[in-house]
């Protein structure tokens, strides 16, 4: 298929359709409205259903119902809306339902602003809702990757029976880039889900549930979930490195949009006295800690850049375990850092080490 110039939000919608998703429940919020708008027009063309819910709370519970009924289903929202969805996310994690949620992050806390941000890292990777649970979190940095990761998100959600977050920001959502959809899955070709509430013809009734009133039962359920999460940690870590061959003076760790900005900074510093590399996690949970350390081991210093006041940096420090100095540079509130700023930070770090 030929490449098409598409907005990140639209590419996310089309990628979901190509992944066999025929159901979307959502509620409008900037800066991701192009996703529900796209789906409201696109899904009826392929026999799918779009419902604009009365709230994010309702939308996420519609996901809960549809995922329980065995359907490929998604929603998208932005930070404050995702907070409202956390109720159902916890329930879906507890009842082990495959579902894809897209968060096109904007600045917070509270109503915050509508400009790009990465300040929902904690919410996505450390819980957000109540209880001991984990979601696979994928962070695209290009429109093509956003499309590719949507397919992966649905696939992995089904495979592990677990919610998956695709964590983008306003830049990824609003930006247009060429995109190519490499595969197309028809819903009827998806593997059956024998656990789903599809009517109990010829079998015992299925129950979608996260309630375990006996402590021992709930504990066992939790250990079961933890074993699954351990499996995800083992299999699903994804990352990319740039300009790190043979080690570097400063390793920038960044994801999503900021990784692109860091890349520009690195290109501009090529041929200069300071060698700079990039480590870009693609999965934010599970975090590619071992790979990060392997890269950082051959590095002088580590600089974490985020559009937040410092969230992912905690996972970077956890991976580095004090073996290298880790510093943080962040812009927030919707301010997007420029490559110059990254260069200045890198130079300052490198200079300090000389």
């Amino acid at each position: 298929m030929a490449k098409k110039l598409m907005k990140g939000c639209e590419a996310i919608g089309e990628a979901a359709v190509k992944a066999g998703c025929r159901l979307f429940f959502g509620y409008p919020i900037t800066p991701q409205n192009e996703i529900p708008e796209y789906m409201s027009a696109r899904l009826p063309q392929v026999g799918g259903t779009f419902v604009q819910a009365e709230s994010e709370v309702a939308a996420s519970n519609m996901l809960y119902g549809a995922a329980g009924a065995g359907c490929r289903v998604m929603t998208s929202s932005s930070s404050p809306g995702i907070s409202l969805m956390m109720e159902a996310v916890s329930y879906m994690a507890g009842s082990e339902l495959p579902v894809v949620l897209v968060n096109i992050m904007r600045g917070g806390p509270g109503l915050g602003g509508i400009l790009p941000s990465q300040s929902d890292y904690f919410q996505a990777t450390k819980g957000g809702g109540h209880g001991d649970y984990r979601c696979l979190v994928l962070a695209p940095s290009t429109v093509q990757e956003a499309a590719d990761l949507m397919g992966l998100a649905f696939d992995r959600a089904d495979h592990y029976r677990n919610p998956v977050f695709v964590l983008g920001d306003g830049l990824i959502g609003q930006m247009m880039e060429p995109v190519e959809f490499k595969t197309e899955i028809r819903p009827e070709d998806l593997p059956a889900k024998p656990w789903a509430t599809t009517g109990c013809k010829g079998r015992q009734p299925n129950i979608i549930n996260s309630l375990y009133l006996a402590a021992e039962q709930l504990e066992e359920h939790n250990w079961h979930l933890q074993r699954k999460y351990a499996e995800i940690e083992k299999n699903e870590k994804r990352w990319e490195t740039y300009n790190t061959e043979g080690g570097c003076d400063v390793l920038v760790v960044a994801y999503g949009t900021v990784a692109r900005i860091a890349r520009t900074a690195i290109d501009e510093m090529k041929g200069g006295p300071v060698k700079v590399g990039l480590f870009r996690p693609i999965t934010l949970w599970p975090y590619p800690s071992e790979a990060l350390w392997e890269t950082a081991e051959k590095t002088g210093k580590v600089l974490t850049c985020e559009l937040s006041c410092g969230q992912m940096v905690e996972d970077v420090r956890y991976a580095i375990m004090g073996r290298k100095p880790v510093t943080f540079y962040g812009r927030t509130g919707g301010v997007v850092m420029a490559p110059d700023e990254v260069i200045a930070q890198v130079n300052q770090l490198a200079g300090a080490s000389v």
Partner: protein
Amino acid sequence: MPTVNVERDRCKGCGLCISACPTHVLAMSDEINAKGYFYPYMEHPEECTGCRFCFLVCPDTAIEVENKGKKTEIPEALTEKPFHYCPGCTHGVIHRLVAEAIDGLGIREKTVGVAPVGCSVLAYDYFNVDMHEASHGRAMAVATGVKRGRPELIVFTYQGDGDLASIGMAETIHAANRGEKITVIFVNNAIYGMTGGQMAPTTMPGQVATTCPLGRDTSLAGFPIRIVEILRELTTPAYLTRVAVHTPKAINAARIAIKKAFKYQTEGTCFSLVEVLSTCPTGWGLQPTESGDWLEQNMVPYYPIGDVKTPEKGVLWPTAQGQQSETAR
């Protein structure tokens, strides 16, 4: 001669069967069952007419009536698991009516029930169909997801007054207004049962609850919410009705309404809601046998029984009888 068989260890000794019996056949034994409850027996078997009232009112499916070779039956759409509800709580009656409707329409194998948070949180143990738990208030949103994803299924929710009329009010109004093709069983017992008797949006004026110990003060908490009358103002929903389950006669009417609400869905008609006035002897601080009278005297005048809207006739009583008396208060 007709026989009443009591499955002794299912019985919770509520006595509803004894007071429902028109010919005073039944009496409470002075022995206790495995659960520690007294249970009824046929003291005057010769008086039994086989009317089945005892079967109808029994909230624990503990009674079987045998007459002329025919036996009352427990519907297939119920599991055999004994209900956890308190003695005399009419949830069990409503469960049975829902299961009878499912059996009667032959839809058990394509039905999905949604059980929310409240006393009926364990309903998935009792209905012998695919069941989906919902978080508090979100049953209709979950049902929307199931039905939109699989329109061929018959989807129902079973919700209490706190769930449907308080925390889930937005989901209620909007599912009704979108005309989701689902069946909603709304159990209104004027109190929060599971959490221990707190005030509900449907608690009666002056009614004592643990969060209104001096009685519901309408100047602070407003008047009880009448759900079917609120939904009547929406153009979309098809079938809105209110029934009760405090007498054998009321139970028979409720059975018809609940079956209709499912039948409409099988015909593709949108949104049906049956509000069922139900008792909560524990929350109300009354004997099970007193609770029906309390419901009749206090709830029925405020929550009038009958159809409010039907797909055939539309809105039935746009200026309701109860309406004026309330505004005059």
